């Protein structure tokens, strides 16, 4: 039994790669999988913060690659999930400190002991992207339902195909059903129409996401978060289960629907 290496990438920055990586890691660990998260965003590390593990970092990815630490020493165990580990990025160096071959070697060292290795890819299409994608068995592309993010996702898919890692599966993040209904936001169909790849998950915009990332408790740990539920479902799909997609909008109560009928709106 060996681990599946999954790289989370996007091209564009700020679409939710790190949030996605953290939440998928937590969700998989809660489903009983052994998971290691690798932050490949050297120089701009974030994944440790979102997981609430910043203050536990002693060694990082570059320390492993340059031989100052053993892999095991650098792996940080999650506070509540014993089978979830983080290999943090270095903050003081840049992407060139690591090569694609280093990442392959690192992932191979972990394969025997893990079920999933998730790699958080930096934004952009340069060295950091190539590092993060090199060991991947599968690539998840995170995008938002807006034209610029979809354009970058398209570029990324093209590069993945050229590296024979493609086409990957799509996570559509920060979807607002209300805006789609008004025709102000691209719908999942609009996005797949351009990109032509399979969607593995649609994550609704959720006001819990920012505070939970700030406090280091990914939303997947919260019971009543719709985004958390969506990440949980993506994790199950990654494990090969067939999970139906959540409806885009929460079911409204009878009174709310009545209100919409007569008031013509109401958020």
């Amino acid at each position: 039994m060996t681990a599946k290496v999954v790289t989370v990438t996007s091209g564009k920055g700020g679409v939710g790669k790190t949030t996605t990586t953290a939440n998928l890691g937590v969700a998989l660990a809660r489903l009983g999988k052994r998971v290691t998260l690798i932050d490949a965003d050297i120089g701009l590390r974030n994944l440790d913060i979102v997981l609430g593990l910043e203050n536990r970092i002693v060694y990082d990815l570059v320390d492993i690659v340059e031989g100052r630490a053993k892999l095991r020493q650098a792996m940080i165990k999650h506070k509540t999930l014993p089978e979830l580990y983080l290999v943090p990025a270095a903050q003081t160096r840049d992407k060139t400190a690591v090569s694609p071959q280093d990442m392959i070697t690192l992932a191979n060292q972990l394969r025997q002991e893990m079920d999933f290795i998730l790699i958080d890819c930096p934004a952009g299409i340069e060295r950091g992207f190539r590092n993060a994608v090199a060991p991947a068995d599968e690539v998840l592309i995170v995008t938002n339902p807006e034209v610029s993010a979809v354009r970058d996702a398209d570029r990324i898919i093209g590069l993945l195909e050229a590296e024979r890692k493609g086409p990957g599966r799509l996570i559509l993040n920060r979807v607002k059903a209300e805006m789609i209904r008004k025709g102000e936001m691209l719908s999942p169909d609009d996005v797949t129409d351009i990109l032509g790849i399979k969607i593995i998950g649609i994550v609704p915009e959720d006001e819990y996401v920012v505070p939970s990332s700030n406090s280091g408790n990914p939303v997947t740990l919260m019971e009543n978060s719709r985004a958390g539920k969506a990440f949980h479902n993506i994790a199950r799909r990654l494990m090969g289960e067939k999970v139906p997609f959540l409806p885009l909008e929460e079911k409204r109560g009878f009174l709310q629907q009545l209100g919409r009928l007569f008031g013509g709106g109401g958020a």
Partner: protein
Amino acid sequence: MRDQMVSIKGINDGLHIDLDPEQEWNVVTAELASRIDQQAAFYAGAKVTLDVGARPVRRDELTSIKALLDRRGLTLACVQSESQTALDAATALDLRIIALNAAATSNNNDGAAAYSSEEDGTLGVMVRRTLRSGRTIHSRGHVVIYGDVNPGAEVVAGGDVIVWGRLRGNVHAGADGDTNAIVCALDMTPTQLRIAHMISTSPPDKRHKAKPEVALVRDGRIIVETWQ
């Protein structure tokens, strides 16, 4: 007729490296490596346009020459060739391509075939996949794309451009000034469409139904009509 099997010239934004298509591949690549090594520091960092002439360079050969350049700090950016095999290999490696259709002009001067029943046709390149954002195809002949041209992708052709799919990126037909060039697509909503020196854009969101259309120049402007 050529004094060197490898010629290296400086061009605007990098190096133009010309490989003799007649010589043994291994000999040429070895010569290239040693030529670069002689002035390693001088060449390091350059973007390379590789002209392989008529040689049908295979993908693995192109991969190895790309690696050869990489190791010396040079980037292979573009492949220029008369061979479809070489162009396909370059496309597969996400490199920019320039198709040289030298064969078209030289073959036509046979004379003897004046009343041949064979149509000569004109040369073009065929791309059998979707062009995603950031990809470009340049050809002096025609370009046929069996797939979509996504927004952010670009096709530049000396002749016609035919897209058997959705055209949503930038396209330039008749790029060398031929106003008779046309652009056809099954769904015509390019970001920008040029024929020769003329430019037009798609009307903003017309919620249109996809239908085959052709763009051509009439009375000095680009018009789009149903393709039939």
